[in-house]
């Protein structure tokens, strides 16, 4: 009777179901009852029903369909969280019939104004793709759209979708490459990993190998050809390549091991040799983490240390083994130590190894002995030392140790057998005691191979082995046959019968491999009339000089797999692994990454900010984050908020990315400066509390060093795109010309003043002294804050200062005298109405609400026809923001542009909206409680848009 549940029972139901699911029990009988609850209003219950639905929908498709309409409704909910979770669940229901509905929902969500919903859309893409791969083309369109998104929230998720759906469509990345590089540091950790891995692959297809000249040299050396003087192009790194390396480097400091590893592999695969070293320290740090992390990191270090040994040498001691390390970690550390061994550190390393041999952990001891063997083969100077040490181990009490030593000694002896017949004799004696098959087999092989060095012992060993033949392991039997054959060939007098005996035993062995071998050898070595030509060469076949085995690291050449990947760890290609491409021979066109410079809403500010860089304004570390913080705070105020960062910050980051691929160093600074700038504005409006203490606030948000006293240097800005007005002509001023512009910066000493930047140019031949303001004749209520006196302005120099004027929200001119040490000039500054305001940030909903309260007399509407060049959103935005100091309000439609600001003195709201229609027709609406300002603003904007 659970079909009609009352509210009270719902949570009960849920708490009952979940444990059942968690324990892997089947709760599907409850399906109909639970599905009924989907329409429930309570968010909590909704969420739980969702969990249940996702789990059982696949089994109960018909019933699941009942719930679909609820989700569709949820997709339209005004609350972004509901929209997001409805999409999240809808896309998780694995029922093929709803694919079209899902597709539609994803498309809509991809253009949702909430970045959170867009993020969810990105998450939904792989889900739909795995349900119905035929949707690929449609999904790629959505991915393309989302890749263009400029919020950090979306970036990680959409790249993840890209990697799952269309990793081969590298062309989709071009236009977004610089943006992704710049956003990276602020993306959440998991997104960073995905983006970095993808960009590694991207870079391998688009840039040139930074080490190509060195690599070539190596190759040439190997060839030792006289044609070494090959035309070699000097290598110049693509600035985009540099951008990637620079922007990922700070992430080596991430607390997240996966992020650090991702950056490390990026550097390993992409950076010039000289720069790869930086990752060593970070990787060594990861080794202090959990043992699983160590395990993975050590695998990667092992691979890296073969190719770039020097990189880890300073950290040799970090790879020393502790008795408390798990065996698998010990073995990996041993591997790294062995890779790092060279002439200078081998003594230290061998000393370490010596203590390891005493360990309780026998697997580890065996690995250590192997490692000693490898050091001995790689470094000739210590070969004898190692060999002696290993021989001593032959008298060890532990059989495993002895066995392992035998195996290793065998390999070492192969290099110079003639000098070591005493060792071979010693080993021959061991056959009485050692039972480990591999060791016995090794000894037998050695004796057989070098039977000429031990002519007396060898036949005796064979005699003993023939006795125990039937009880031996297969590998030992094979080696006995082998020994018999070799002895037969060199010393047939003594061993003929023994060999026959052994071969007869082998003939009836249970193992067919041994039977085969016996038959084969008999044919080969025992001359009969039937035996063919081969037997003549039997001696050559068996006793040919054999090349000594190369003891190689199992990690050699493993770097053809992308480091940090599952495939690298397993040394086998895992499903879905994307091969890391080889560097291209010639770089593809780098211009594909250029993005057309769109007209930035804040072109004006961008320029000022850019110019300010060299003035030594304090750098703002992670300014972007600070900026985000504030948009975040604004957002907090309204729960249903729309795109919080459109217009202002977005257009800026765009600007930033789009700017030509010039030295990106400065680009980076700019972006920080920019965001700082604009946040200052936001702060002014968004945060009343801070308004009174702008200096402090700036400090607080951007954590610059304490602000300087009143003559705030940040606000001294050379003019860029700002419209400048003449204050004093060169001729009237007797060589002193003065220009001013409205810098649109908050005037920090007094937020109710408009900042006016004044630029003095002394084109006279003598210096001007003591420039200052005097005798201001102001309308009542108006105030000015003079600039600090300029003591000397040498001939030919230019200087800028900032003064503040409170125009009392009127366009009345401020009159005052500009004095030098000799003369006084009467000047006046009259502000255009657009400069009497400053931008504020608001959401679409806030805008509508405020607009609703400023109707009637406060609203002025004008119809107009847009000038030809001015049709299109960007042009409109640009012209309006040039005419008036307003900020754009995010808006879903591209037919309507909205702007908001407030007057500087009284803080009255100024709302502007421009609705465009067909054929350039448009309607301008200005809402402002100061009617005079409203009227004048309409006039100015009309003029801006129509001319």
């Amino acid at each position, binding site marked *: 009777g659970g079909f009609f549940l009352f509210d009270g029972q719902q949570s009960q139901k849920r708490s009952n179901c979940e444990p059942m699911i968690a324990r892997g029990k089947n709760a599907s009988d409850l399906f109909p009852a639970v599905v009924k609850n989907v329409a429930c209003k309570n968010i909590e219950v909704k969420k739980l029903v969702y969990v249940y639905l996702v789990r059982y929908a696949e089994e109960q498709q018909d019933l699941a369909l009942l719930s679909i309409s609820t989700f569709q409704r949820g997709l339209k909910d005004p609350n972004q969280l509901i929209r997001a979770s409805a999409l999240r669940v809808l896309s998780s229901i694995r029922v093929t019939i709803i694919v079209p509905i899902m597709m539609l929902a994803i498309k809509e969500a991809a253009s949702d104004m909430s970045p959170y919903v867009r993020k969810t859309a990105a998450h939904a893409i792989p889900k739909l793709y795995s349900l119905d791969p035929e949707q690929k083309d449609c999904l790629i369109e959505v991915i393309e759209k989302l890749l263009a998104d400029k919020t950090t929230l979306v970036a990680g998720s959409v790249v993840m979708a890209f990697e799952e759906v269309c990793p081969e469509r590298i062309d989709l990345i071009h236009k977004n490459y610089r943006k992704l590089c710049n956003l990276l540091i602020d993306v*959440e950790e998991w997104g960073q990993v995905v983006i970095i891995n993808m960009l590694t692959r991207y870079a391998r297809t688009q840039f040139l190998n930074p080490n190509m000249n060195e690599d070539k040299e190596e190759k040439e050396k190997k060839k030792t050809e006289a044609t070494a003087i090959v035309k070699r192009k000097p290598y110049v790194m693509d600035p985009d390549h540099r951008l990637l390396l620079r922007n990922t480097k700070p992430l080596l400091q991430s607390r997240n091991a996966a992020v650090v590893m991702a950056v490390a592999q990026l550097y390993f695969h992409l950076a010039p040799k000289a720069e790869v070293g930086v990752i060593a320290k970070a990787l060594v*740090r990861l080794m202090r983490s959990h043992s699983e992390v160590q395990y993975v990191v050590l695998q990667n270090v092992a691979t890296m240390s073969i190719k770039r040994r020097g990189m880890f040498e300073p950290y040799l001691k970090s790879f020393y083994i502790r008795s408390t390390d798990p065996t698998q970690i010990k073995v990996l550390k041993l591997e790294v130590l062995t890779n790092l061994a060279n002439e200078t550190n081998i003594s*230290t390393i061998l000393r370490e190894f*010596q203590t390891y041999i005493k360990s*309780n952990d026998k697997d580890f001891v065996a690995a250590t002995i192997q490692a000693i063997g490898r050091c001995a083969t790689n470094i000739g100077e*210590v070969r004898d030392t190692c060999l002696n040490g290993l021989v001593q181990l032959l008298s060890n009490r532990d059989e495993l140790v002895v066995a392992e030593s035998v195996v290793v000694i065998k390999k070492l002896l192969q290099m110079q057998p003639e000098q070591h017949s005493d060792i071979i004799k010693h080993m021959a004696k061991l056959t009485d005691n050692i039972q480990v098959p591999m060791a016995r087999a090794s000894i037998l092989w050695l004796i057989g191979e070098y039977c000429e060095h031990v002519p007396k012992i060898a036949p005796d060993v064979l005699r003993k082995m023939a006795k125990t033949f039937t009880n031996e392991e297969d590998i030992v039997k094979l080696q006995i046959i082998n020994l018999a054959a070799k002895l037969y060939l060199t010393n047939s007098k003594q061993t003929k019968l023994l060999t026959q005996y052994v071969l007869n035993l082998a003939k009836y062995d249970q193992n067919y491999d041994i039977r085969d071998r016996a038959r084969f050898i008999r044919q080969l070595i025992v001359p009969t009339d039937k035996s063919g030509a081969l037997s003549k060469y039997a001696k050559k076949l068996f006793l040919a000089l054999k090349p000594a085995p190369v003891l190689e690291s199992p990690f050699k050449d493993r770097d053809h797999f992308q480091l940090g990947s599952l495939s690298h760890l397993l040394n086998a290609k895992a499903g879905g692994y994307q091969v890391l491409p080889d560097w291209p021979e010639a770089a593809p066109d780098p211009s594909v990454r250029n993005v057309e410079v769109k007209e930035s809403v804040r072109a004006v500010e961008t320029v000022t900010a850019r110019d300010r860089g060299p003035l030594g304004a304090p750098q703002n570390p992670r300014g972007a984050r600070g900026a985000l913080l504030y948009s975040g705070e604004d957002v907090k105020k309204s729960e249903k908020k729309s795109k919080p960062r459109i217009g202002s910050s977005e257009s800026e980051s765009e600007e930033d990315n789009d700017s030509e691929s010039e030295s990106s160093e400065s680009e980076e600074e700019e972006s920080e400066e920019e965001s700082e700038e604009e946040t200052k504005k936001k702060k002014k409006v968004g945060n009343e509390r801070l308004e009174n203490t702008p200096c402090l606030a700036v400090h607080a948000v951007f954590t610059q060093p304490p602000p300087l006293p009143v003559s705030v240097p940040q606000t001294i800005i050379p003019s860029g795109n700002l419209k400048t007005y003449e204050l004093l002509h060169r001729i009237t001023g007797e060589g002193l010309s003065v220009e001013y512009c409205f810098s649109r910066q908050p005037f920090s000493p007094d937020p109710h003043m408009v900042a006016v930047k004044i630029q003095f140019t002394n084109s006279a031949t003598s210096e001007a002294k003591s420039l200052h303001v005097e005798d201001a004749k102001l309308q009542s209520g108006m105030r000015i804050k003079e600039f600090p006196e300029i003591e000397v302005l040498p001939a030919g120099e230019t200087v800028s200062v900032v003064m503040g004027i409170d125009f009392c929200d009127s366009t009345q001119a401020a009159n005052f005298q500009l004095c030098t040490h000799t003369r006084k000039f009467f000047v006046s500054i009259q502000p255009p109405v657009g400069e009497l305001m400053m931008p504020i940030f608001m959401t679409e909903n806030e805008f509508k609400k405020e607009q609703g309260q400023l109707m009637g007399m406060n609203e002025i509407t004008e119809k107009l026809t847009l000038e030809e060049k001015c049709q299109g959103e960007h042009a409109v935005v640009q012209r309006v923001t040039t005419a008036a100091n307003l900020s754009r309000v995010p808006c879903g439609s591209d037919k309507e542009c909205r702007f908001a600001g407030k007057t500087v003195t009284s803080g009255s709201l100024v709302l502007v909206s421009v609705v465009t229609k067909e054929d350039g027709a448009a309607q301008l609406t200005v809402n402002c409680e100061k009617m005079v300002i409203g009227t004048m603003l309409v006039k100015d904007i009309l003029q801006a848009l129509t001319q």
Partner: protein
Amino acid sequence: MQLPAKMIHSLFLVNSSGDIFLEKHWKSVVSRSVCDYFFEAQERASEPENVPPVIPTPHHYLISVLRHRIYFVAVIQSEVPPLFVIEFLHRVVDTFQDYFGVCTEAAIKDNVVVVYELLEEMLDNGFPLATESNILKELIKPPTILRTVVNTITGSTNVGEQLPTGQLSVVPWRRTGVKYTNNEAYFDVVEEIDAIIDKSGSTITAEIQGVIDACVKLTGMPDLTLSFMNPRLLDDVSFHPCVRFKRWEAERILSFIPPDGNFRLLSYHVSCQNLVAIPVYVKHNITFREGSSQGRFELTLGPKQTMGKGLEAVLISSQLPRGVLNTNLNPSQGTYNFDPVTKLLSWDVGKINPQKLPSLKGSMSLQAGASKPDENPTINIQFKIQQSALSGLKVNRLDMYGEKYKPFKGIKYMTKAGKFQVLPAGTGLGFKKIIQYKYRTKHTSLQEGLNTT
């Protein structure tokens, strides 16, 4: 048709006796029989921590972590960076620990609903979604005894009533609308010294690593800066995402908007070129005689370079050789314990009084007839030093911007032993020639260890 889907497919929780006690699937269900491959690997491994973290199976890959004697086994279907999964699993464990105080099978079973809700929020379709504890706590309230009682009576749950805003805020690690009546910020500088000391007392390796753990309870959106007297000591650092990298690079100042509550601000490694002050010394003499069923055990320890601070919570442990049947030792202070099965000797020394150095002396009985153990045991030491950071790192000042109230600020220093080992004397085998070789080559770091032979 099922295409390979990336990231985490399912999660199984396996206890130490090899039972799966919880499973969660983010995509279609994977049969728990996949864990058989894991159990096989577990059987092969001699010790629990030797189970390989990555196990390939015919259709899946198993990536596991072991924490608190529970294996967290994630099922993967295709290529994904293994560290990505491992790091995520550890984050899951950290979250459980944060929510339930401990992360044990019992705690997980008791809170199975919360666990399930957490896992649901942490991964979407196998890709991490919300892993910041601040945000999770807004979505799902941690259980308290009171609420558990209330929930049982009223039938309500732990899911947050209010919709979270954090996810939407661009300071993803900080909750919005934080309010406290007492505004406090506490920072603990905790350093661990890892060292390997040879029998003569010379240092083979020694390193200091430290962390700064913070507990910040501040109203609003405070912006903090923390500066050090001697930031040059810090050789390698890793940050909580809240720390502004560039500010650190340029000025060596930590500038951040803190998460609310407890978090690890910074982990660091101290650069000291082996000049680490070793705060403790151990003299030990453990001997076995061939043919005798008795062995002698002598161990004394004392403070050394502790900067006037006392050594506390000293604990000695050592894995004695297998041949040792039992011990008969006499501690001058504290209690000692020898487990005849695992052969683990542990001695809880407590505080060290420099006037009266603690010692542990006595005899060991060996298996009759067994040959003399061919190795001497390594001694592991744990200790604490309060009110001192061994590296000498000092916080200079902590400033707050962005809010107007005056917070209470506190800082605490502590040093602990990390992996601190004293090696046995190097006897028995040796590569005598190595030493000669050492003299032959000009090598700077040969100093240490020479006197052992």
